Structures are given as C-alpha cells and as structure tokens.
C-alpha cells in the first residue's frame, strides 16, 4: 500500500514537472513562436488584423475564421479540428461517428505500418544475412 502510494506520488511528481515545463515554455515568447502564435503575427491574429481586399483579417485569421451568413456576416471560428478541440463544438452524432472512425483508422494505419515494417525489415535481414562460415575440419 505504502509502495503504491509512493509510486503514485512519483508519477504525479513527474507529471507536475513536465506540465510545469510545458506551461513555462508555452508562456514564454520562444514557446509561443514555436506554435506560430507569438510575436507580431500573434498580436495581429489576436486583434483580427487589418482587413485586406477580401475583408478578412490580413494575417493568420484567414485560416481559422470565416463569415457565416446566419450570423449576419460576423466572423466566427471555423469549424475545423482545431476549433473543435478548443471547444467550439456541439454534439453531432453523424459527424462525431465519422470523426471517431477517422481517428480509429489513423491509429490502425500507424500501428500496421510499424508492425509490417518491422516484420519486413527482420525478414530482409534474415534473407541477406551472410551465412556463418562452415567449421573447418
């Protein structure tokens, strides 16, 4: 029991250290730049930027925002994957099931590629391995 508690504490401590490092990294300018959100670009993105000829923000926002007619042309978060994960989503069974299938297929493809790749490499290594020299009489 004590051993389990000690191990749990170690896991939580490691998680805390990693989380702290990630938080520190993501709140510094270097970390923000790594995610393409920092610096002038990020500031302009956050403000929406100056509109260009199409009326959309000049930088950044063009990729993640679109005008929706139902909201009177107001800029709304685009319903992409990133927007979904940041919370701009409603339950949609059909779209959700399709997305679940998509994630499942991704997982299966990654797994199969690695498993078959390993098998192929080991088979090739067996095939082209130099035979051991015959024992001399």
């Amino acid at each position, binding site marked *: 029991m004590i051993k389990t508690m000690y191990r749990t504490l170690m896991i939580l401590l*490691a998680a805390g250290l990693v989380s702290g490092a990630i938080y520190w990294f993501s709140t510094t300018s270097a970390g923000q730049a790594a995610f393409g959100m920092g610096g002038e670009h990020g500031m302009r993105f956050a403000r929406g930027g100056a509109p260009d000829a199409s009326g959309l923000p000049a930088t950044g926002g063009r990729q993640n925002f679109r005008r929706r007619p139902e909201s009177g042309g107001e800029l709304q978060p685009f319903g992409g994957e990133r927007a979904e994960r940041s919370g701009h989503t409603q339950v949609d069974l059909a779209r959700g099931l399709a997305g679940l299938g998509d994630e499942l297929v991704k997982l299966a493809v990654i797994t199969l590629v690695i498993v078959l790749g390993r098998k192929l490499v080991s088979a090739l290594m067996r095939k082209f391995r130099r035979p051991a020299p015959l024992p001399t009489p």
Partner: protein
Amino acid sequence: MKVKTNLLIDLGVCIALLLALEPALTGIPIHEWLSVALTGTLVIHLLLHWNWIAGVLTRFFRRVLQVSRLQFVVDVLLFIAFNAVMLSGFLISREVLPFFGLRPLESRVMSGLHSLSADATLLLTGIHFALNWSWVVGVTKRFVLTPLSNLFKRKPQPASAAAQVQPE
C-alpha cells in the same frame, strides 16, 4: 489475473482515448470529464507496469534490449504529449475549471498546443501499440480467440453415451 486486468485497462484506455479525441461525438462536458477519468486510468496503467519502467530506467545506458530502449523513449514522449494535452485542455476547459470555481484561459497558444499535442498523442499511441504488438496478439488469442473457439468447438461424445444411442 494481472494480465487480464492489464488487458481490460488497456482496452478501456484505448476506447476512452479515441472518444476523447472526438469532442463532436461526445460534446464538451463528456470530453472534458472523460479526459480527467482517463488521467486516473493512465496512472493505474503506469503503476501496473512500474517494474518494467524502473527496470529499463535503471539500466537504460547499460545492457538492455534495443526494443525496450525504444519503447521507453516512445513512452516518455507519450507521457510528455499526454501531459501537454491535459494541461492545455485543463487551462482552456469550459466545464472542469468552472466546476471548481475557476475561470478558463482564453489563450490561442493553449488551443494550438492542445490540438498539436492531441495529434502527437494519437501518433505516439499508435507507435506504442505497434511496439507492444506481440503482447496484444498474445493476450487477444489467450483471452478472446481461444475462449470463443472453445465455445463453438464440438465436444467429443463419451463412449458410453455413444453406445446407448446405437441401434441394436
């Protein structure tokens, strides 16, 4: 017993992870609370494999199987990615933080980090799964396929019963 527990926990983690990666299916409240539950389950997963973790960690730069070393590196990366997805998700959460009376951050950096680390988690889970493929195949055969095949296998009739049904 331990192998069966491992299999059940791993299956649960895999299903929960796939569901958590698709908030459009579950909605934000289930997405967030499921992820919190997933964290607890992953701590149990790590506790069940503690001996392997400690064994590889102490012998990492010494004599250890190359595959084990690779598995350990992938697992460490998965741990970091999962921490990133949980931290960023927690900071921008709309259900969990307000439940505790806290205000979520409105940060694009955290949203970006959440999306990026979720993709990394899926990729690394696939690699983790592939590196443990032989274990997955072994326990699936032992606990799923063999009991199923036994269920449909025709039992041989005992000799006395066979004699009784024979016509005179």
